[in-house]
Every structure is written in C-alpha cells, then in structure tokens.
C-alpha cells in the first residue's frame, strides 16, 4: 500500500515538475468533469483527451482538471479556472451549460468549450459526438448474434441523446433481423455500478442475450460475461472487464478534437462553432470486433465504412414512430441534426413506453 502511495506521489510530483515559472508563455487548459476521473466511462474518456493534449503539445501547454463538480454548483469551479490564467476551458457535461455561459460573459478573453451543449456565444463553442452512428453498428451485430431474438439496453436517463441511441440500436438490429425485440431498463443514474449490474441481470433474466448500455460503468457488460451472454462496451474499450462477452465498444475519442482546439487557441485561429463529430471525424471509434463469426464481423466493418463515407445514415427517411406515423423528414434524405438532438419518441417496433 505504502509502495503504491509513494508511486502515485512520485508520478504526481513529476507532473508538477513542469515549473510554473514559464507559465506566462504557456496555454493553460482547464477541464471540468461531472464525475470522478476513475469512472471508466464518460469523465475518464475526457481525461484521456486531456492527457493527449499534454502528450502532443508538451511544453506549450499546461492542463488542470476539477473532478466530480456538481452541476448545480459548478459556476465557482469554472470561474476558478478562468481567473487563474486558463485560456481554454472544457466543461464536459450538459448541466454545465448556464454556468459556462455566465462565466464566459465575465471573461470574454477566455475560450470555452461546452460538451453536448445547445447554446453558444462568441467565446463559447459546443461539441458533441454522434454516438448513434456506432449504435447502429452494434445494433446490427446484436441482431445477428441474438439467439433468443431479444436484445437489451440499460439506459441512464430518457433524454434525447440516449433515446436516439436506443432507436439507432434498434433500427440497426431490425435491418438484419426483422423480428427482433428490445427490452429497455432505466437506472436513472449515469453511474451506479451495483444498480447497473442489477438492471443487466433483470434484462438477462427476461431472456435478453445481447446487452447494450448507455451508462458509464463496466458492470452491465460484466454481468453478460458472468452469464455467458454478450454485450458492448460503452465510452471506453472495456475488453479487460469482459474479454469473452465484449463484441465491440463504442469509444468516445476526444483526443483529436481537444488537441486541435488547443492548437487553434495557440495559433490564434480559434472560433466559436458547433462540432458534431461521428465515425468519420474519429470522435467516435469502434473497438476491435471480437467474439463473433467472420460474416458478422464483415457486416459490421462494411456498415462502419458506409457510415464513414456518408453512404449510410441510421436515421435515413422514412422513419416511423411507434404509432406508425411517419416522421417529417427535415434533413437531406434523413432526419435533421436538430431532430436527432431533440428525439423524444421510440421508433416503430419498440414495444415499450418511453418514460415522460
């Protein structure tokens, strides 16, 4: 234990060793995380992005993070970064939106980047990832791999991002297996490993044999492994938690975007804009396809390539709601970004009620 502690201390001291003397010329980049960096999921992946900035830009930058910041009390933490010389600040949860905008008004020279946000300002950019693209692929895999014909989904909260993910997953499964059924369980938490495990067990008990999740811990996937069933990793590659069960994982990769934005600030080319990156931009990546026959793997790879090339959109028109009515097609041959970002209905074939 002492050994570990000292090792940790040494690593931290090393990180601190980049002296504050040269801080004036450096760009200080700050991060606000909603969870602990050790959640294996959402905040962990953002922290990987922070490390990528340190790795790529080395001596030109210095990074800081504040973890487990409660959304309702985040304004002070954000301002704390802004007033300590941070030139670029990433606030990485939807709930940080209003506080970020308020602080941004008071610090017009600091650049802000708000993840999954919907409001921008001259010095506030927004960014998010099209995870639903990856979910279409895992849906197809699930549709192929299920023996019982029932696939499962552990959801955090019934917000548009998650609902769009479920729809995309189901549409993917349906495209290869028209009779497939889906069961959804909400745990009302982004992160509660034991409850996520219980939810996964409930689904497995009801005959589900391929499990997807939109919560942050590896617990549901582990349950699939323990029961000899299959599943998908979420946010990060969770293969080490379930080597036999993980078919693939939808990996959030913020590294490229974060490095690019930090560079833009250093070069003076930063602009406020909205970035919604998917598989093509590398913001969403698929972990290696494993534990499946070659034909399924080939299908998945082809779908991935088609989405990357823009030949396939999970929400291509026509899209039908549960009652059979057709959704107005506001995009170019598919639902528009706004429609996906505000999705509050299940597609036809999902035999469940969306909690309101």
């Amino acid at each position: 234990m002492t050994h570990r502690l000292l090792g940790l201390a040494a690593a931290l001291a090393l990180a601190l060793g980049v002296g504050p003397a040269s801080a004036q010329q450096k760009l200080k980049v700050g991060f606000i995380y909603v969870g602990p960096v050790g959640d294996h999921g959402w905040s962990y992946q953002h922290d990987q992005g922070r490390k990528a900035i340190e790795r790529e830009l080395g001596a030109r930058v210095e990074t800081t993070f504040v973890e487990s910041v409660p959304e309702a009390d985040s304004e002070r933490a954000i301002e704390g970064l802004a007033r300590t010389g941070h030139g670029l600040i990433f606030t990485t949860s939807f709930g940080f939106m209003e506080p970020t905008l308020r602080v941004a008004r008071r610090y017009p020279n600091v650049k802000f980047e708000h993840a999954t946000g919907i409001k921008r300002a001259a010095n506030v950019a927004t960014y998010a990832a099209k995870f639903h693209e990856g979910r279409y692929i895992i849906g197809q895999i699930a549709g192929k791999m299920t023996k019982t014909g029932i696939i499962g989904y552990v959801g955090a909260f019934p917000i548009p991002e998650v609902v769009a993910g479920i729809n995309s997953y189901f549409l993917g499964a349906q495209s290869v297996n028209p009779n497939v059924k889906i069961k959804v369980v909400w745990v009302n938490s982004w992160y509660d490993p034991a409850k996520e495990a219980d939810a996964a067990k409930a689904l497995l008990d009801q005959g589900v044999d391929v499990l997807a999740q939109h919560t942050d811990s590896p617990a549901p996937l582990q349950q699939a492994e323990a029961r000899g069933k299959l599943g998908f990793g979420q946010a990060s590659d969770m293969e080490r938690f379930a080597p036999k069960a993980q078919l693939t994982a939808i990996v959030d990769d913020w590294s490229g975007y974060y490095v690019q934005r930090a560079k833009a600030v250093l070069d003076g080319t930063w602009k406020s804009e909205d970035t919604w990156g998917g598989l093509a931009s590398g913001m969403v990546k698929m972990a290696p396809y494993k534990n499946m026959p070659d034909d399924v793997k080939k299908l998945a790879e082809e779908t991935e390539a088609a989405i990357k090339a823009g030949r396939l959109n999970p929400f291509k028109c026509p899209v039908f709601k549960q009652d059979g009515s057709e959704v107005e097609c506001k995009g170019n041959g598919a639902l528009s970004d706004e429609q996906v970002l505000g999705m509050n209905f299940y597609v036809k074939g999902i035999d469940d009620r969306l909690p309101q």
Partner: protein
Amino acid sequence: MRLELTPRLDPSPLARVLAPIAAFMVAFVLAGGVVWLLGRSPLAALQVYVIGPLSDPWALQELVVKATPLALIALGLSYCFRANLWNIGAEGQYVMGAVLGGWLALATHGTDAGPWVWPAMLLLGVLGGALYGLLPAMLRVRFGVSEILVSLMLVYVAQLTLDYLVRGPWRDPKGFNFPQSVTFDPAATLPLLGAGRIHLGAVFAVLAVLATAFVLGRTLFGYRLRVTGEAPRAARFGGFDSGATTLAVFAISGGLAGLAGIVEVSGQIGQLQPTISPGYGFTAITVAFLGRLHPFGILAASLAVGLTFIGGESAQILLKLPLDLTTAFQGLLLLCVLCADALVSYRLRLVRRGGGS
C-alpha cells in the same frame, strides 16, 4: 491502563469557545500528514486551502455565496438538535422548498407578473420545507417512529419527486427534452447585492442568526427548548408538551431548509434541475455541530466549512490534490469537533488497571 471520564461540573466558557478552534487545528495537522503522504508540501496546501481564499476578494465573495445555504439550514437544525431530535433529512426539506417555490416561478413564467413573485416564492419555499419537515415529526409524535430514519428516507423521496417533475411535467418544452425547467423570469429571481454573485439570501442568513439568538436567549420557547434538550423528564414535569415542541422545531428546521432551497434556486441556479444541492443538507449537520448549536457559532462555522469547499477546489486547480482529500478532511473535522466537545464536558484520565470500579 484504561481511559476514564468524569463529568466536569462547571466547564469553563473559555474552553467551550476554544474547543472548536483546537479541533480545527488538530484536523489540519492530521490532513497535513495525509498531504505529506501524497508527496506535497503541507504548507503549500495550507496556503491554497486557507490563506489564499481569505486574501482574495473574489474567493471571499464565493465564500459568502457558499456559506448562505449552509448557515440557513444549520440554524434550523440547531433547534432540532437542541431538543435532542435528530433531523438528518434537511436535504429533502431543502429540495421540497425549492419545488414548491419553484412551482410559482414556472406558473408565472412568461406572464407580466410583477415583482411580488420572488417574495411569494420565498414564502412558498418556507412552507414547502416546513410541511415536509413536519412529516417525520408527526410520525414521531403520533406513532413513536424514529425521526432519524423517516427524515432520511424522505430525502430520497424528495429528490425523486424533483427528478420526476423536471424530467416530466416541468420540463422546458424548448429545451431539447433535457431534464430542466425554463430559466426563471427576472421577477422570479432573487435580487443581487451589488455587482457580484452575492444575493439577498446572505441577508436572510444574517437575519436568521439574529432571530435565533433572540428566540433562544429571550423567549419562553427558547428556554423550553434548552430544558427539553438538557433533561427531557424535567421538561415533562415542568408542564411542557414535548409533542408540540417536536412539531415546532421540525417546522422551523424544515422551513429554514426550504428557504435555503428556494434561495439557492432563485438566487444562484436560476432554474430547476434534477440535482440542486451538492449535499448542503448533510454538510449543514457538520456546520451545526461545529458551531456548537449556537447561532453566532453557526455563522462562523458556515464560513469555515464553506472555506473547505472553496479551498478544496483551489487545491484541485493549483496543487492537483484530489477532491476526496477535502471530503475526508470534512469528516475528520467533524469527528475532532465532537471529541473536543466531549473533552470540554468531561475530564479524561488514564487509570491503571484495577483502579476505579
């Protein structure tokens, strides 16, 4: 050898004042040890945690903002704790105050309702908290059910109620389905004091301190409260109805927690969200004990505990010390305060085995 306690007959008033300060210092020394174990300089940590924030006008302003809800809730808790009633559900009463008060903000949203809205919201907030606080009190008085557990269970129920409302009926229709209400109109927003972030809630906290000092020192109710706390049986012989006292202190405690909730929502957050408190209702218990249940003590304690939050964030930013250190320190601090309290009331002696009874 073993420890033996003997009650001090007349604990010195000076010791009573010095005890929390001594506890603070002991906790600092222990936390400093942990910081040292983590390979950082304890002195640098002290600078970042305490001296930095105290010598920075911005941090002082943030300190007042942070201390406001803590002081309001802890003052209310002091009524309960003085009566030996353990309300540990202030978090739920805080949420219910915010819910009832926030309801008015949403009901008047988009109308040209006048500046009467926010005062009415505050009243509803107090009412919501008080009614919710009365639930465990009534169950205790009527059925003898433990108020500790009922008030705690009701915290979860309150949080889930708010969660349901902001995800369902109260969701902002234009908010892309995200779980939050519309942002409050100016008429539903608590006025700010000056240009910074300090809002009218800070004034209420100070008023609540003065009112509590008056009630405890100058009224029959305050006297009764002290008697009930010190000797419940004597209070009964004295003709005091302990049932009525129970209801009263829970109503006051809930009302102040509810006020804190609505003040935070209308003064700070500006809308209803699934979570509107980083655990103020629980942290306030630390504040109440640290302030020795005395109104002015609580005022000082709310600032001291607020400082650990502000300092904890600076420590994350400047020293990259983990948040858990701040949490551990707060727990340690409370433990030290309670032990110091006990040492004021009792004399501690080491006795050889066989000595004593």
